């Protein structure tokens, strides 16, 4: 295989893998930047995947080609609503954020499978007929070399993820909302003395994380698995969490980390066809993405500092 061919395979598949992780990791950023640890990303993805698939199956005749897009909007809303549970527990009820997040994960998988059995009377849904499809991006696909690698045989959702990451970066670092969000996650009491409603900001952070996690799940299910079952979301939420930490709670960093994960995965798949990797036992390629991540963290990323107040409760008047 020529390098060009390799890239033409690796890049789109990298981006395909990365997209759901990017959305979800961005969600995690909103939550954690507001000071609420969100280990429930996995559960939020589950909710998103479930909602998107059920919606897609139910309304595909009504909405036709637009179904997957509308489905991710519905998944977004479902994720946002579901994340309210985490918000209420972690912010209002002063639950330990991690415990509450674990509860979210357990609840999401239990509830969705229960509903699948209730609705369809079986353990998993049918396959959707209208998912996200491969496309060539008009105009850009004709750019020499670059066009072939980046803009052919790819998915709109991959580019949407990148665009959303840039928007999130802008929102978090360039707007008053972002400044306030971050201040609440770093030093809620300081924010309070500046007249910022800490509780409101934290609720917003969590709800947005639910919305983005929902999108992540919806994108994953509709562009990759095409149905919903117990194994549709199995660890992607944790990978997104890892991407968020890897990316140092920075939207573009998280995007980069997610793309790195996607890349490592793709390499593990294509590796067996590359001449210089062919002789290596498969197990090395299978563990490569994870080992590479650890090495990368150890070697040149180093320590990552979470927002200072993340995981803490803000109780007015306490010190």
């Amino acid at each position, binding site marked *: 295989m020529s390098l060009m061919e390799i890239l033409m395979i690796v890049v789109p598949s990298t981006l395909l893998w990365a997209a759901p992780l990017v959305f979800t990791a961005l969600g995690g950023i909103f939550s954690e930047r507001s000071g609420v640890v969100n280990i429930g990303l996995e559960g939020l993805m589950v909710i998103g995947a479930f909602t998107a698939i059920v919606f897609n199956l139910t309304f595909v005749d009504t909405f036709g080609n637009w179904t997957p897009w509308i489905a991710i909007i519905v998944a977004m809303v479902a994720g946002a609503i579901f994340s309210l549970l985490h918000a209420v527990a972690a912010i209002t*009820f002063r*639950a330990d954020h991690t415990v509450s997040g674990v509860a*979210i994960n*357990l609840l999401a998988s239990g509830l969705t499978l229960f509903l699948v059995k209730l609705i369809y009377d079986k353990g998993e849904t049918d396959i959707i007929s209208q998912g996200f499809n491969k496309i060539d991006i008009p105009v850009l696909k004709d750019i020499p070399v670059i066009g072939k690698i980046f803009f052919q045989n790819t998915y709109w959702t991959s580019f949407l993820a990148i665009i959303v990451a840039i928007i999130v970066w802008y929102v978090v670092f360039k707007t008053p909302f972002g400044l306030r969000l971050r201040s609440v996650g770093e030093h809620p009491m300081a924010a309070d003395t500046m007249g910022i409603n800490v509780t409101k900001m934290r609720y917003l952070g969590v709800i947005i994380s639910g919305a983005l996690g929902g999108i992540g799940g919806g994108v994953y299910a509709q562009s990759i698995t095409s149905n919903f079952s117990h194994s549709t979301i199995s*660890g992607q939420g944790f990978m997104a969490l890892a991407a968020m930490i890897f990316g140092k709670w920075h939207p573009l960093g998280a995007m980069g980390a997610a793309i790195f994960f996607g890349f490592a995965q793709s390499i593990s798949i294509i590796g067996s066809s590359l001449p210089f990797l062919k002789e290596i036992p498969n197990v090395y390629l299978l563990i490569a993405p*994870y080992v590479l991540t650890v090495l990368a963290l*150890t070697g040149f990323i180093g320590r990552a500092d979470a927002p200072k107040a993340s995981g803490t409760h803000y109780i007015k008047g306490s010190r």
Partner: protein
Amino acid sequence: MLKRFNNILTPIIAVLLGIIVGTIIMVVSGYDAVAAFTALWNGAFGESYYVGEVVRQFTPYILAGLAVAFAFRVGLFNIGVEGQFLVGWLAAVWVGVAFDLPKIIHLPLAILAAMAAGALWAFIPGFLKARFRVHEVIVTIMMNYVALHVTNYIIKNIITDNKDKTDLVKESASLRSDWLQSITDYSRLHWGIVIAIIGCFVMWFLLERTTRGFELRAVGFNQHAAHYAGMSVNKNIILSMVIAGAFAGLAGAMEGLGTFGYATVKGGFTGVGFDGIAVALLGGNTSIGVFFSALLFGALKVGALNMPLEAGVPNELVDIIIALIVFFVASSYIIRVFLDRFSKKEVK
């Protein structure tokens, strides 16, 4: 006095609330809740067989819970129990299959191998945290996947000749007991429960009663103060992960030498490690708490298997109930507020 009472009451109320909400969900979805709970009860305690199975399930849950709780007490979040569990399982089986030794040596050796494997697997994130300040959450997640693939590879290519399953461990390395099986009507109950209970005691004693535990807890609460006081923060971080990993490896040994007696190639995670997180958190990261929450989990999980058959209710309902219980325990602050209000009114 009242406070202590409330401390015990809160989790009980959380469990009740979980069951109540679960009931509501069932009623709303048109299932027969009474039949479901009857089936759940029967499936967990209805026959001596099921009691044995509950205890069998309870055993790795305790140890996986301890593995999470121990690290948590030192301020580390060990999501890697699943991986440590898998390597422990494999190591125990490997020793159990490969040697021919008297039981008095073979069994402890197999168990030690599991602990060592789990400890080694946890040492890596601990070391990276201590040495390079790499976030243990990511490393432990990654180590889970590595464990899954590596153990599969070893089972297929090293222990067996391209098979999916190892031989049974030798009798001399088995935790199984005909007697335990016979009193529980052929359940897979094995001696591991004794080890798990010892594990609870060890964790309690180590953390609460020893100088080493004093250090570990100090590091967990305030690394700067621990450093100031002459404790080695890095050493304690690594040590806590190693001990947590040993617990997780031990949990794997329970499966490898007890419940299953062999190791298989796995398509995905067993879930025991992740359930361990919930067990630990529900148990407030104390050993006694872990003991009781593991019991609850074990009973619910085993009992749930009976629900579809006997009551036609999807067993995911139990997952929902468990999630709700964790949720309510997490929100115990609000339960406490209500309790306080309630008891104040009583006094007046």
